């Protein structure tokens, strides 16, 4: 009751903010994403990290924004990165990258399209995006299907890294299904809205699906007062 979140600002502003790693690549936040990139790279040593799931406990914690920015920083490192919008309930990735969402993941999963045809290039070199496609009535079943497995095998071969943007963990089961299939899962926790109980439940559901949790990204954490900031030229 004390912490009702302020309504979101205008959409245009949100678009500007979403891809901070491109619009303001020298900012502290971009540097934070590069730190995340490093930490993800070093978090898995025994196996190759090909597929990453980005999820959170409840909606609105910044899954899509984080997934997009992580994809950007990996692409900036020279990797061939594919971001897949696996949120077939409320997709946003096509907004973030301003791409059409005519064909996408759902088309592939119902075998109407091939992976190669629905992957779209972005303005960032090495970064590719697969939008959600038309909203299907049964996203959980589609994600659990054999076709999904086949899709995973294809994209794992073609790309260095595949990042899945998924629905939140607590309301629907989609993320749980995906987390089982992915090499690693990143849990986004928004410090302003995440409740301890919810995050605990989210972790439990990830454990139940035997997901490998790479770690937590704390979103909306205030800048430390004496944060280090230096500029190299």
């Amino acid at each position: 009751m004390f912490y009702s979140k302020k309504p979101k600002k205008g959409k245009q502003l949100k678009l500007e903010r979403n891809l901070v790693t491109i619009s303001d690549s020298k900012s502290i936040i971009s540097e934070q994403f590069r730190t995340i990139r490093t930490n993800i790279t070093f978090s898995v040593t025994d196996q190759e990290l090909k597929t990453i799931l980005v999820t959170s406990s409840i909606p609105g914690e910044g899954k899509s924004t984080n997934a997009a920015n992580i994809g950007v920083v990996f692409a900036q490192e020279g990797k061939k990165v594919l971001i897949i919008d696996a949120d077939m309930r409320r997709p946003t990735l096509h907004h973030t990258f301003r791409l059409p969402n005519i064909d996408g993941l759902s088309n592939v999963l119902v075998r109407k399209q091939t992976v190669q045809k629905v992957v779209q290039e972005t303005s960032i070199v090495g970064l590719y995006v697969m939008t959600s496609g038309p909203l299907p009535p049964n996203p959980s079943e589609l994600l659990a299907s054999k076709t999904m497995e086949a899709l995973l095998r294809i994209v794992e071969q073609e790309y260095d890294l595949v990042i899945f943007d998924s629905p939140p963990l607590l309301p629907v089961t989609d993320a749980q299904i995906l987390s089982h299939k992915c090499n690693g899962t990143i849990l986004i926790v928004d410090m302003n809205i995440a409740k301890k109980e919810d995050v605990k439940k989210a972790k439990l559901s990830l454990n139940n699906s035997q997901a490998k949790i790479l770690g937590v990204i704390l979103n909306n954490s205030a800048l430390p007062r004496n944060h280090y900031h230096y500029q190299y030229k």
Partner: protein
Amino acid sequence: MEATIKLSDLFKILKAHLFLIIAITVVSVSIATIISYFVLTPIYTADTQILVNQKSDKKDPYVASSQIDADLQMINTYNVVIKSPLILSKVIEKLDLNSTPETLTNQITILNTNNSQVFTVHVEDAKASQAVDISNTIAEIFKSEIPTLMKVDNINILSYAKLSEHPIPAKPNKLLNIGISGIIGLMIGIGLAILIETLDTRIKSEQDVEDILDIPIIGLVSPINIDKKTSRLKRQTSNIDAV
């Protein structure tokens, strides 16, 4: 949830809600100040000392001493007599007060040190001069009435109440009130801070995540709309670039 709070956590809570605590304390102190200075009527006091001593010609020390004992015992009686309507109605009449003996009784306290022949008529009133007048008039009327009442003449007025040039009200004790309200405000503030912290189930720090999840933190992302800060830094850099 753990029932205990670590001392360091407590300090953290207090620091986080410092503004709230200070605000509540300030509000509490200001309310007390306003009430003390503007709402409560100041009460002034006046004291008249009365000596109870029988004028005795006898030189016999034994008789003198028993006389003193008798006087001491009389003081208890005098206490009642002074506060009786008989005296007080005469006081009201003489000073032309807009009061009744009952209300006047509440303004009067008879103070008596143990085994002392002196007792004090202590009067409280909203007007300093009136307190002095009442106190002195009571003493005088009591002195004049007591021979007829008790057939003794052992009352002497030791010292009259005097009206000082700048009377200081005895009540309300402003500093005490403000002090107490400050402490109460501080306590309410601290209590509220702890309550808020207990009811707040959100994740607030990296420590929280480590405590409840046992998952490594791979990154922190600051709010992206801190445009001011980043753009300021950027401007600084671009200035450097220009040079």
